[in-house]
């Protein structure tokens, strides 16, 4: 009764495909940076430095330690806020997924929080928690938590009913049902929610640093803008956008490679 393996993966060498992707990435980067350079040299605006000047400023603030120090300052409330959001978000989401009552009471609140511009509340945070670390952590949580909660909740709710039946018919206890079926099945979507939460958390921390008090990255942006040091300002902003993009795409790689065995070929 030997049966053949369904699909043994595509034979196309992974390395060529990877080199191809890398090549087009580089071309794409070169084109965009080239356009930036030309636009800066025309210049389209007195406040639009070419890429070369921006890059020089970037190297400058790295070498004198300003940028690394700023990142350390910024990442502290970001990481704290994300951990808090992840822990409570997944807890609330699982609770809402398992209990109809919790779903009824909490889901509308988080749906509103997800669709509404929570940024409007950030100025309020300052009144209660001052201008310190707590306020910034809270700003991150306000933006990151709703998407984490809602993804977790949807993930738990959409676990295949036949897997739940299977667990019950093989005499799984309710606890086993949660730990051995629901959580692993919901895992990938929960992780995707965490990734979206990280992206939202970045927005939260930037807003907090621009609106509450300029510290870290926000401080460099505000200060260099006020003294018209545009290359430094652009370098800082670009580094932040790239940093956030790289972080999110690393999480995405982790997701497809490790979190979903059914996706790895």
């Amino acid at each position, binding site marked *: 009764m030997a049966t053949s393996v369904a699909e043994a993966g595509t034979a196309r060498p992974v390395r060529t495909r990877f080199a191809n992707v890398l090549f087009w990435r580089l071309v794409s980067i070169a084109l965009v940076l080239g356009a930036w350079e030309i636009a800066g040299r025309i210049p389209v605006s007195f406040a639009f430095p070419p890429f070369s000047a921006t890059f020089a400023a970037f190297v400058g603030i790295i070498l004198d330690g300003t940028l690394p120090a700023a990142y350390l300052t910024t990442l502290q409330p970001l990481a704290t806020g994300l951990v808090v959001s992840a822990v409570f978000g997944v807890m609330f989401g699982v609770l809402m997924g398992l209990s109809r009552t919790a779903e009824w009471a909490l889901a509308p609140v988080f749906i509103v929080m997800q669709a509404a511009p929570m940024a409007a509340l950030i100025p309020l945070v300052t009144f209660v928690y001052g201008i310190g670390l707590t306020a910034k952590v809270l700003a991150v949580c306000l933006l990151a938590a709703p998407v984490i909660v809602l993804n977790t909740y949807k993930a738990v709710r959409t676990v*295949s009913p036949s897997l739940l039946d299977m667990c*019950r*018919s*093989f*005499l799984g206890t309710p606890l086993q049902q949660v730990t051995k079926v629901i959580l692993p099945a919901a895992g990938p979507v929960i992780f995707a929610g965490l990734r979206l939460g990280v992206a939202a958390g970045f927005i939260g921390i930037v807003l907090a640093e621009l609106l509450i008090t300029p510290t870290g990255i926000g401080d460099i942006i505000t200060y260099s803008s006020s003294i018209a040091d545009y290359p430094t300002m652009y370098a800082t902003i670009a580094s932040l956008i790239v940093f956030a993009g790289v972080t999110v795409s690393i999480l995405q790689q982790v997701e497809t490679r490790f979190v979903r065995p*059914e996706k790895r070929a």
Partner: protein
Amino acid sequence: MTQRLARPPRLTLAATTDAPNIVEVRRISKSYGNQIEALRDVSLAFPRGRLTTLLGPSGCGKTTLLKIIAGLIPADAGDVYVNGRVVTGPGPERAFVFQDFALLPWANVLRNVAFGLELRGMAKDEREALAAKYIRDVGLAGFEKRYPHELSGGMKQRVGLARALAVNADVILMDEPFSAVDEQTRRKFQEDLLQLLAVERKTVIFVTHSIEEAAYLSDQIVLLTRRPGTVAKVLEPRIDRSHGPEAVRRDPAYLDAVEEIWAMLKQYLA
């Protein structure tokens, strides 16, 4: 019609394991909401060590009946007895094989087959040794470390069957196990299933909508009517299986059974 219990005795037989009927269904009714009546007053008996198919037009409640026997959904009225005891939920003497396989996508074949044992708290080495045996029995030796997405539909269902065999239940409940599998694989699987059952001595309750499948596999065939499902007829085709699986399909008893079932079912098609 011998097996149909028109008026079942209210006095239950003493809980004994050598009663001729391992599973008895007594006056089961089930409705979904107020509108849909799935089953009405169904009484059936399933002899020990035999394969019984529940056959009927789609929507006749055959899967509902199977899930009630499994203890996965409660009946509105009536009782199910297994080994003389009333069913109140899933139990260790029954194992279910799912139409959509219900395999854990994040677990390999070995863990999937051992999953029922894992839920019972059996030690890892012990359950994996047992699972490995059943993986060999269903013909999947060498695929222990594969994941479900790497298997064909037929192979996935073999995993589902091995999982059900591994918990050593007396009764195996199969819910249209081959409906998501192509025709050739299905035939091969049917033959393998019969060979396996000859060794394993299980009682099987098998839901299908395929007349040929029912006639080919069954010791007993229960024909259900359209919704609300009631028992239309119970057939016992006396097919000689001693000449191997291929001979069965040419056996006059098999062909007569197919004809008879078709004649019965035709009247329910509008």
